[in-house]
Each structure stands twice: as C-alpha cells, then as structure tokens.
C-alpha cells in the first residue's frame, strides 16, 4: 500500500500528502492550502513551481526571522532544559556545554534529574567530555535543592553558564509540572531574572502531541524558546509550524545527531526546504 503512486492526482492532493506526512497536522494543512488557492491568481495556480514557492513563502512567514541567539549575559546565565521523556535534554546539554567551552566560557552543569536511573552518571560523562564541573545530589534528592546548590556554586566559582538538566516528564502530570515550577521559583529567588532561558526540548519524530506539550509547558512555565532534536534523520518536525503560529516561541537550537558537535542554530529556510522535499 505504501509504495504505489496513484496516477492522476492533482497538485493539491500531492501537497496535502506532503504537508500532513511532515506532521503539520490536518487542520493547518487545510488552512494553508486554502489560503494559497485564494491568494494565487488562476494562472499562477496552473504552475506547480509558483504554488510551491508561494507555499515556501507562507511557511517562512510563519516561522519568522532566524533564531535570536541564546541569552549568555549574566553571571551565571542559567539555562533550564525541560521536556517529556527521552527527547534529548541531557545530550543537548552536553552539546551546548561543549559549544560554550569552545567559546572559552566557564560552564557548570546541574544534575537536577534525581529520579531516572543513572541520570547524573550520564551527565557526568558529558561533563568530563567537555571540561565542565557538575553539581549533583544522591538519587531521590529534591531537584530544587540541586538547583539551589548549583547556582550558589556557579556564583562562587565565577561560572559564566549554568546548564540545568531536569528529568523527563509528561506535561499531563501536574505534580511533575509543579516540581519544575518550584525549580523556577528557587532560581528566581536567588536572583531575579533567573533562569535567562527556559527551553523546551522537542523530538522531531513527535506528531501532533508536540503542540499539546508546547502549549502546556509554555502555559505553566513560560518558555523562552524551543530546541528540536533528531532532525538528522527522516522526521521533518512539521508540528513546529503550528507551535510557532500559536505561541510565537523562537526555535533556538536544533539537534542533528548524537555527537558532541551535532548542535546547530535554527535556520528557517533550510528547515522549510527540507520540509518540502
């Protein structure tokens, strides 16, 4: 069933399949294509190339300009990484720590995932790889206590950057969302304005649920931006279109592999180009 290309399909059916298969979602796809049909002249609609470039423009319009950079001002600049289970938070912190180390900055890591098996051990390996110290407590400890210790240590040691790793959690678990809120409160009490970045890490393979995740995390924790991982493979992360349209959150980083260098700034035109292939 999945290899037969049906003959005689018009461009609209082709585009519908293209966009839905890229995880844009049915409603957004319908709206986008309807808008194109209304906006283009009947002669333009005859040209597939013209339709494609109009679609490209429309998507770029939604995504907006290239990512504003990461906030690295403040001593320390604190990054709080959060998201559902297995999206790549810990690995992204490792890559980000490496990037900042390459820039000559002093980086401290906070192992605030005190729940999952070997979570702090995993972060410790990254700490050794990049040359960053790590603040950790014993398994089962209060994550807020780890964060409080980490900020104190960051200030005392003159760290430029503090990266906070949290446990994966489903956005539907209110007690776990509360745990994150408490972490943010603790940070804010140490110094107003902390954390400078609250980043939701999303997996490119996630379907429409990515929108629910972004909505809930943003509503509860006021995100400063998004990280989208696993874009090195076949997933196109089309759900981002709906998220950015609804919430206007900037996409700050993308993960393109499991290696230390596999972190890039978000490039809207490259993203849209890949999406429409």
């Amino acid at each position, binding site marked *: *069933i999945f290899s037969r290309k049906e003959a005689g399909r018009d461009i609209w059916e082709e585009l519908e399949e293209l966009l839905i298969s890229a995880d844009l979602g049915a409603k957004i796809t319908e709206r986008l294509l309807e808008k194109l049909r209304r906006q283009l002249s009947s002669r333009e609609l005859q040209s597939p190339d013209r339709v494609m470039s109009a679609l490209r423009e429309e998507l770029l319009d939604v995504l907006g300009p290239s990512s504003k950079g990461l906030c690295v001002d403040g001593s320390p600049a604190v990054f709080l990484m959060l998201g559902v289970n297995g*999206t790549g938070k810990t690995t992204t912190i490792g890559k980000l720590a490496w990037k900042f180390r390459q820039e000559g900055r002093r980086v401290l890591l906070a192992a605030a995932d005190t729940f999952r*098996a070997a979570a702090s051990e995993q972060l410790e390996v990254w700490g050794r790889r990049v040359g960053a110290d790590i603040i950790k407590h014993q398994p089962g400890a209060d994550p807020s206590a780890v964060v409080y210790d980490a900020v104190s240590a960051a200030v005392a040691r003159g760290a430029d950057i503090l990266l906070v790793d949290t446990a994966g959690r489903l956005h539907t678990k209110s007690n776990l969302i509360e745990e994150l809120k408490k972490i943010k409160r603790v940070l804010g009490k140490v110094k107003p304005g902390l954390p400078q970045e609250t980043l939701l890490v999303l997996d490119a393979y996630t379907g429409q649920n990515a929108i629910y995740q972004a909505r809930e995390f943003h509503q509860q924790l006021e995100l400063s931006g998004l990280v989208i991982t696993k874009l090195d493979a076949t997933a196109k992360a089309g759900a981002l279109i709906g998220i950015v349209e609804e919430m206007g959150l900037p996409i700050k980083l993308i993960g393109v592999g499991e290696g230390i260098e596999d972190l890039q700034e978000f490039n809207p035109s490259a993203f849209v180009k890949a999406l429409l292939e």
Partner: protein
Amino acid sequence: ILTNKLQTVFKQLRGYGRLTEANIQEALREIKLALLDADVNYKVVKLLLQRVQEKAVGQEVLASLSPGQQVVKIVHQELVELLGQSYRKPRLASHPPTIFMLVGLQGSGKTTTAGKLARHYMSEGYRPGLVAADPYRPAAAKQLEVLAQELGIPCYSPLEGESPKDTCLRAVREAELQNFLIIDTAGRLHINQELMEELQGLKKALSPHQIMLVVDAMMGQEAVRVAEGFHNQVGIDGVVLTKQEGDARGGAAISIRAAIGRPIQFIGVGERLDALEPFHPERIASRILG
C-alpha cells in the same frame, strides 16, 4: 468527541432509512480529521476510509443507533480489526534461555522497557537476566544495572572494548540460573546502515525468540517508515508502545500495525518498572477516535 461531531453531521438524517454515499462523505471527512489528528499515517487513513465507506453505504440505519453512532461503530470495528483481535503473547523458547531483543529509535524507552519486561516475566515464574548491549550512550550500562539491581537480577554489561555481540554471547554462556535474557540495544536510526547491520549481526549470532520494536506512543507520521525500516532490515516480531499514559492518542499503533502487520504486545504506562500492560486493541481504538 468524534461521535458528537458525527451527530451534528447526521442531524439532517433524521427519518432517512439508509446511509447513502452522499451523507457519508461529510462523516468521512470528520473521521479523516480525527484520525490524522491522532497521528495515524496519511496513507493508512485513506485505506481505512475506503473500507469504512464500503461497509457503511447501503447499511440499514439500526433502530438502536443514530446514523452518526453507526458510522463510528463501523470505524471502531475497522480499527480493532486492524489492530488485531486481542492480546497476543510473545513467543517463548521451548528450551531455555528465551532471548528477547529490544530495538528502536533513540529515546523510545528500550532500556526502561527491558526492566519492565524482566519484572513482568519474573511474575510469570521466569528468572530473567538483563544484557546491556549499548556501548555508545553515556552510562547506558549503568542505567540497566540500576534497574537490574532494583529487581535483584543479574545484568551483563560490556567489558572494556567488548562488542555488543560478544557481550550477548558471553551472557548466554554465563547465564546459569537465568532462563530468560532480555537484550537492550542502543537507540539507532532506521537509516543508519552500519547500526542496522549491527542488529543483523546480533540476530544471526543469538537467534532471539522475540525481537521487539519499542516505539514512542507520541510518534507522528514517520512511524510507518521507521517500522518498515526496522522490519525490512532486521525483522520485528512484536511492538511495545511506550509513554501511553499521557495524552498522546497513539495513532502510530495503527500505522505500524498496517505497515508491518506485527502485533502490539505491551504498552508502557509510566516510568516505574511496574508500568507495563498487555495491549488491548479496543482501548486504543476508542482513544484514537477521541
């Protein structure tokens, strides 16, 4: 909620005796949106709608149901039929040890599921051991060791420089009291030729009785390509759908079942080792329809 949407579509059908092609079109559109919203693969949705249309047209509207309810009932039946009738037990060995191998994309929940399966089979009287065949991810072996410790069972971890295959073969040799070995492999992409060949090598060396594809319930349209990739290159016997206790509708279950025809055998419903349930098709079908 799909039932309610279809109620409005069929409001005008009061008094009509049959479901006709015309009045089904609008219903099919609502169903299409609901299924796509639930992450069922685009091509699978097209197939399902075709089948529903064939079954629905000309049907007598049953006295006990509204036309909308009737169409939903047909869709529900199609989904359940596609997903398989009931819980399908994984295949076990006639001579020990039974060997399970878990494979899948990065972060899908393989390591945690390995622990959950060990616990499940312990409750069925087996003596499992866990095998950490992931030498790449930082602290992967440590993660599995912690789970094994929690269950009080042995964990075979890679020795310095030992390949995944050698770790597994050593586990089979050394497992004296264990009659069940669960192999946790590294997350990998279906398009990574080298790592897919590693899995083929493991399969050849160990002849696992069950190779399970571990998939995240919130996976989107790529579920088909991923499942096909693993199935065509390695061969999948059964599927575990993880993180199903959230609000992900789980349409990937339908897509995978349609794509590779293998049963979903378990669902992960939490982060703890007791959060594993046998898979019931009707429950997922109801969830997907919303």
